[in-house]
Structures are given as C-alpha cells and as structure tokens.
C-alpha cells in the first residue's frame, strides 16, 4: 500500500491550509519535514524544511495512529499558513520522498471506506461530498481544457495512441503483412510529446514563479558595478558597495516588485580567477545561484574577457554608462542612467516567461506529466534496443498513457486497436 498526500483543505488563499499524508510511511515522511513529531492526537508547532534544510513554513503538526484516523491508516495533518505557494512547496517536497505519491481524486475517502472507517451516518453524507467533489473536478477540467492544454493533451493522446498502435502492429500482427520497421515513426511521435510536455513543465515552473517570485541574478566581472546597480534598482543601499574588487563575496538578495511580479534580485560575487579561498567560494556560489535563477543580467565593460556563456534570454548590459561617451546605451547605477530601460527589459523578459504559464497549474498535472515523461524516456530507450524489447517499449508506452489518463481521461486498448485497424491492412 503506497502512502498518499494532498491538500485536504480548499484550494486557494486561506488563513490555514491542511496537507494530509496517509499510509504506512506517513510518519516517516512527516518526520523528514518536521524533524520530530508530537505524540498522536497532540498538536505541536514545527518548522518544516526541505531535504536541503531550507525552511518551507512553520506548521501545526497533528498525527493520527493507524486505525484511529479518517482513512484508518497512519495519518499526519500539517496545518500550514494558507498560502498557495507554501502548500505547493510542501507538496512538491513530499513528492520527492520515495514511496509517496499525490492522492487520486477521492482516494482518502476511498481508503477510509476500504478500511471500514466510515460509519453509517458518514456514509449517508458521503454522496453529497463526492458529488461536490466531482463537480469541482468537472469545473476544474473545464477550466483546464478551455485553455490551450486541451488541444495539446489531445495531440499528445493521438501521438501516443498512434505510437502504441505501431508497436502493437509489430507485436500482435507480426505474422502478417505489416510494416516491420516502425521505429522512426514511434521515436518521432514520442519525441514530439516529450518536447511539448517539457515545455508545459517549464510553463508550470513559471506559473509557480508567479506565486513564489522570480529570481534575477546580476553577474559580471569584479568591480563592474553590480552592487551599485542593485542598489539603484532597489532604491536603497542593500548591498555594500566599495571600489575594492571582490567586495561581494556572498550572494545578496533583495526582494522587490517589477511590473507587478515578485522578484528577488541577487547580487553576486564578481567572476574572476582568484586565489583567495573565501572569494573563490563566493564565485562558485555566484555561478550556482545564477544558473538556478530565472534570468541573468550580465554587466560588461569594454575589454572584459567573456568568462561566461549567457543563454539566449539573458540580458547583457554595458556597465558604468557614466564613464562612456554621452548618448551610448548602457546603465549606470551611480547616475541612474539606463536604469528604467533595464527595468523595462527585465520586466519584459519575466512577463515573457509568465506568458507560457498557466496551462498546467496543479501539482497533480505536473506529477502526471513527469511520470509520463519518465515512462517515455524508458520507452525511447527500449525502442532503441531493438525488436527484442518491443514488449517492454509497449509496456512503457502503456505506463505513459496511464499517466496521461489523469490529465485527459481514459485511453484504453480499444483506442489503440482502432488505430491499428484503420491504418494497417491486416488479415491473412
């Protein structure tokens, strides 16, 4: 029996949100987040941390032992702050634990029933409960599918059905007059789905960012004026600025709002080869944080050696515009020239990212797509190994379709056979 988790309270902003974990590893999972657990049926305040020790939230923790919980299984309820971002972060962290998965709709109730935990009166009330749940699901599905994801999911579905059909033809109709080498088309179809899904997952990240905030890192050679720029952007002296190269050795964060988006600006150590042990750590930390950031702003001075490789969307800005000829483009933290242009460019880049957001919004969608992608990856591997592994390739595709089911509803063998019979001339 697997351990499941989900937000048990209503979705959206609220005073308190409840995340429920149920199943044999519920206590273990909660312990990993909260450090220690209170006695059963007693509450305690705990700091929830992710695997790296970063704080997720402070939450009221409540444990129920087996046979003494709603589901009848070991259960933990985490009462977190009612922020969408917090809940999302907690759910995402739980999703990383081995043996844990997001609960299917109605699954807590179902387990409660399976374990005989609901009494007659509760069963009476269950019908309403469930119909409201399905209504919510329906609305949710409608919202989801009125957007672009509907079309996308339909095309994924078609591609994967077609890919399954191709493998089915070579397996179930191998003694007939059918194409033998379906590999190129299968790989083509699968890779199309992979690309689309990966884009959606990136978009999921952006949707998450809208709630959790973007990170923008400022990078550049030492003493190019990164901290001065940060201060200018932030409008206050958040970073220590001096004229000694290598002043910023740690990463300095400033939270601000740009174009209505929550943004954390990161000021980093200047990038250069150095023998200074502390500065060296600063440089590597700068690179690490910067690569994880959503956007990087590179400040460059004429004559700087390119010690970095910006990606296509990163911004490259001429530094110390106050020292350049009048009218040349660039930015100066000192005089403030070019600052508003830079703000506009950063905002535009971030808004571009948010434009991709919004289709897949739920943790469940994300985990379904991730499961699907991982099965597709194995399928590609199996297809590549040749005919001998076509049954395993087909199994991975079945797994991928099963994952897709939670996004788009059931796809079953009849759909695959329909495709087989409509495209291939079978029958000796």
């Amino acid at each position, binding site marked *: 029996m697997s351990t499941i988790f989900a937000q048990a309270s209503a979705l959206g902003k609220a005073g308190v949100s409840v995340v429920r974990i149920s199943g044999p590893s519920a206590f273990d999972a909660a312990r990993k987040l909260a450090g220690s657990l209170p006695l059963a049926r007693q509450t305690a305040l705990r700091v929830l941390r992710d695997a790296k020790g970063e704080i997720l939230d402070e939450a009221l923790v409540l444990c129920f032992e087996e046979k003494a919980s709603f589901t009848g299984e070991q259960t933990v309820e985490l009462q977190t702050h009612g922020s969408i971002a917090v809940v999302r972060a907690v759910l995402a962290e739980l999703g990383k634990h081995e043996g844990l998965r997001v609960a299917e709709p109605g699954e807590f109730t179902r387990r409660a*029933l399976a374990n005989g935990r609901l009494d007659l009166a509760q069963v009476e009330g269950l019908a309403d409960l469930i119909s409201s749940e*399905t209504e919510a699901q329906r609305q949710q599905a409608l919202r989801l599918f009125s957007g672009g994801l509907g079309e996308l999911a339909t095309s994924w579905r078609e591609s994967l059905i077609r890919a399954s059909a191709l493998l*089915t033809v070579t397996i179930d109709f191998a003694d007939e007059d059918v194409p033998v080498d379906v590999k190129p088309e299968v790989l083509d179809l699968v890779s199309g789905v992979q690309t689309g899904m990966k884009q959606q997952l990136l978009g999921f990240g952006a949707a998450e960012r809208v709630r959790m905030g973007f990170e923008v890192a400022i990078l550049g050679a030492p003493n190019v004026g990164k901290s001065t720029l940060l201060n200018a952007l932030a409008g206050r002296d958040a970073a220590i600025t001096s004229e000694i190269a290598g002043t910023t050795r740690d990463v300095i964060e400033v939270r601000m709002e740009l174009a209505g988006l929550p943004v954390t600006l990161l000021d980093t150590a200047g990038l250069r080869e150095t023998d200074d042990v502390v500065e060296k750590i600063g440089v590597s930390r700068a690179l690490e944080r910067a690569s994880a950031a959503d956007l990087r702003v590179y400040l460059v001075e004429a004559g700087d050696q390119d010690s970095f490789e910006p990606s296509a969307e990163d911004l490259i800005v001429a530094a110390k515009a106050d020292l350049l000829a009048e009218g040349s483009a660039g930015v100066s933290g000192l005089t403030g020239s070019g600052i508003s242009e830079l703000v506009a460019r950063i905002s535009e880049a971030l808004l571009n990212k948010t434009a991709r957001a919004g289709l897949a919004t739920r943790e469940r969608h994300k985990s379904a797509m991730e499961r699907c992608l991982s099965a597709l990856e194995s399928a590609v591997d199996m297809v590549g190994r040749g005919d001998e592994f076509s*049954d*395993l390739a087909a199994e991975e595709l079945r797994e991928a379709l099963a994952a897709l089911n939670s996004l788009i509803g059931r796809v079953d*063998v009849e759909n695959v056979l329909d495709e087989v019979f409509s495209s291939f001339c079978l*029958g000796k």
Partner: protein
Amino acid sequence: MKHLDFDVVVVGGGHAGTEAAHAAARMGVRTALVTLRKADIGTMSCNPAIGGLGKGHLVREIDAMDGVMGRVSDRAGIQFRLLNRRKGPAVQGPRAQQDRALYRSAMLAATEAQPLLSIVEGETVDFIEKSGKVSGVLLADGTEISAREVILTTGTFLRGTIHIGDVSYAGGRMGDKPSIRLAERMDNFELPKGRLKTGTPPRLSGRTINWDILESQPGDSEPTLFSFLSKEPEARQISCGITHTNEKTHEIIADNLDKSAMYGGHIDGVGPRYCPSIEDKVVRFADKTSHLIFLEPESLSNDTIYPNGISTSLPENVQKEYVQSISGLEQAEIVQPGYAIEYDFIDPRALTLELRLKSIDGLFLAGQINGTTGYEEAAAQGLVAGLNAARAVLEQEPVLFSRAESYIGVMIDDLVTRGVSEPYRMFTSRAEFRLSLRADNADQRLTPLAVSLGCVSEERKKLFYNKAKALESAKNLLDSCAFTPAELRAANVNVNQDGSRRTAFQLLSYPDVSLDTLLPLDPTLKSITPTIAKQLERDALYVNYIERQQREVDAMKRDEKQHIPVSFDYSALDGLSNELKLKLSRSQPQNLAQAAGIDGMTPAAIALLLAKLRQARRSKGA
C-alpha cells in the same frame, strides 16, 4: 421416446462444446455432448491452424487446466512455428498448422476415452424447462435429455446464412443446416442479440498449384508444442507456400465488387476488422498493390489447400478468375468456393463471469454464439462454462478467472463487461499484465487452481509439482549465488565496478546475460536444466516491470473481491450521473473491478458505489 439423464448437457461438438464437455467430466459429473454427427466432433470450419499471438496463450492456459485442445493440436500438428520468436518472450505465441482429419480423429478419440463423458447424436430443438429453470434439452427424434445445467455452444448455427455472390441460403457451415428451431426457441428468451459475419477463402486443389515457383515456409526446426505434457510432434511435418496478389487480381476484384455479397448489400452483419475479405482489402487499402497469401495444406491425407488471406463472398466464377491471376495459382482449381456467413450472436453482457445467462437459470453459453471468433477463444470459454456448470451441479462456488492471472480472465471480463462490436479475437495487447501472463508460465499460473478444483490428471499433477520444485530450488540457488564486479569482469560480464555483489538472478535480468554466461563462475549452477533456466531467465527479464505492475494487480484483485449483489439498486445512488446509473444497471457488474471497467466510470463514482455496498452489507449484518 427415449429419456436420458445427465448432470451437465453440452449442445454442440465444436471447440467450445468439446472443451466444455471435457471440463465438466473431469470435474467428476456425468456429462453428455450432443452433436449432429459424431464425426463432426472437433471440426475446423475455418483455417486449419491452432494458436498464434494471444491465441497460443489461450491454448497453453486451457492445457494448464488439463483441457484437451493443446494435447490434440500437438498430435495433429503438421507445422509448428513460434510466432514473434525474435521479440520478448511475453509476446511469443506458439502456432501449429493442423491436419483437419487427424485433429477430428484425435479429438473424437480423446472424447470417447474421457470417463463420465457420453456422446449423443442428434439435433437439439428445444429446452426442457421446469419451474423457470432450464433442466435439459429435447432432440428432434423426441429424445429427452434431462440435466442440472445446460451449456449451449452452437457457434454460427443460429440463423446462419451463407453468401456466395448474390446466392445465399441458410446454413451453419458449408454443407450443414442451421439450427432454426433452436434459434426460434432462443427468441422466446428475449435475449439481446446482434448479427455478425465472417468469411472463408476458396479452397484449392494442391495438385494444381505450381509450387516450384513459390516461396516455401518451413516450420521451426525445434518445434514449440502446446501441451506441457507433450514432448514432440507425432505427425509428419510439412511446409506452407507463400504467394501474393497483384494489380491484376485487384483489378478483377474491383471490377466485380457489385457482385460481392458484402458490397452488393446482401449482408448486414459486422465483420472482423482484423480479418477483412479480399474485397475489403482492395477497397480500403487501395494504395497497396499486393497482399500476402499463405498456402496452407489442410491435411497430409488429402490435397486441399487453404489460401489464407483471400476470404471472399464474390461469385464462384469471379473467385476462379482472381485466383488464377495470382502467381503460382495460374492453373489452380477451386475445390470449394469461398463464402461469407452471417449469424446471430447473443450480447455477452447478458452473461455472468461464469458464462451463465443472467436472466435464465440453468443455461450457459460458450463460443462463437457469444460474439467471439477463433477456435481458441471458443475452447477457452467452453472450459470456463464446463467448469462452472460442474461446480454448480456439485453445489460449489463459481470459478472465476482474473484479468491479472490469465488471458482467459481478460477475455471473459472483456466480453461480459464491454460486450462486442465485431467478432472478438484475442490479442496480447488486450492483456494489461501481459508481461507476467506468458505462454511459458501458464502452468505456474493456472495448474495449482486446476489441482484445487480437482480437474487434473495424476500425470499432470506429478509433472507440474516436479517442475515447480525444480523452479523453486533453481531460484533459490540463483538468489544465493552472488558475484563481485571483479569476478564478473573475469567472466566477461560488464557491470559497474561499484564493489557490490550481484546475485545470479539479478544478473539474469541484464539483457546480455544468460545462465550460460554465469556457468564458469559457479559450477553448482550446472545443476539447473535448460527448460528451468529458460523460464527463470524470462522471470528475471521482467521482474522489475512485474513489481511495478503489482500495485495495479493488487487494486484489481481487491476490487474483484467486492461483490455486487444482482439486486443492487443503482437508481438509489445519490451523486451518480444518470448516464452512469444507466450504464451500471444495464451491465450489472458482478464486482467492483468489473464496474471500474465500464466506460466512463470515475474514481469518485467507484468510491460511492463501494460506500453503498458497505452500507448494504452492514445493515444486512446488523
């Protein structure tokens, strides 16, 4: 007027009927097999082959239950081929070309030899009913046969109509009359019905075929047999021939489409998409300029050739014209024209998982009458019906086959839960757990069940337990032998040099490792015989996937255990859409797993159903 008395009466001596009668008799109840003519027992009306992909699995499973089809096929097989030999073992299917005459005589001999089983010749025209329960059958000559349970396996004989071009006449099979009186009697039961069709190719005279210019397809050099009891083929082995249609053939067919029964609008029934007529192929796949034909000898003792791939309902003269346009068949003579047959079938959703009619007590249906096609599908249903009829006579619980354990279970569940829209044929892709439902482990999956039912011979029991013991000790040995990466490298096995030991069983899951690879590392492994080694290699290959599927299997088995009473009132379920209520009350699922298989069911609806079931059970217990 004669009067006979049996426990179980089986009507029909085809593949479903024989298997049903044998199964009931093996269970120890007095069984009668009623057939028009004794000589027709085990007749193959379509192509002379048993097995194939998915179908070979069914035959192995029937054999694992100690059924007859596998044993008889091994005796009458004249060309054995393992299909998908170069694919994964889970999707390999044994197939054998059969000698029709040998098959019939072997099946008759097996049937006559089966204790408690009697063959009765005659035409069944009516049922005997007592207080609302079918309790026997009436034959045309007035003979009454009373029985506790009746199994009907009439194949395509219910209102069978044969079409050749624009000529059509009533017939169950070429040369046989249909069961019209029985069909009228069945009408009184008001069962949901449908009409299906299927076709056969013209049969050719082998002497008139120019074999010299044709490609020949021999059987496997090491034949894979069906029965776990068989050792080697008994009949002389032959090769099949291969030829192709060409543009000329297609032209002749296209020019005469209006004369085809199918395209001339004479046939209403739905045909199988996976077995289209040559007319269908030419129309639907117009861009293909050639189709494959296998020329399959029907017997060692006569000259008839079954040209597999050109079934038709065109007029005889057109058949001759297009056949003679094909390479190697220029002089070929048709000994029996191809024809299409239309027949009634009963919507299998009217059946329980035991294949018993829900609305009529005492009557089971098995085989083509349930909308399936194929000898193997028919025989497997016969087995299920025969076992359950006997269980009912013995007043024992029904035997249900799970989708998670057998192709038989997959088929029965598909039929009674979803019904059919075209003749139902088994494919490996229908089995969601096909990686564990392999032809090679059918005995491991089903023989223990058969033993517990008491329908297994002493010989098979002994053989099975010896094999099971050998498998177990070999598995233990493989689990206990472990090697370091360095040892493995010395034996040319490449693994990560991570210092951790791997067991022999784990190593077998690597694509390029077989038991032979490991033999130099540990001489005790030599004690494992090749057959046992092969099965364990296959188990190892799939072990990770099977573990992953286990959650699905567990969920299904749990749901299968949640029985839904026949009287369950779906309309009283608040919170369920009307559409779902309708679907549920129409299909009357017997358990929660079946309900979950109904199109459109949601997890929430299943939870609701479960809740009501528990409520009903508790109030009953209170």
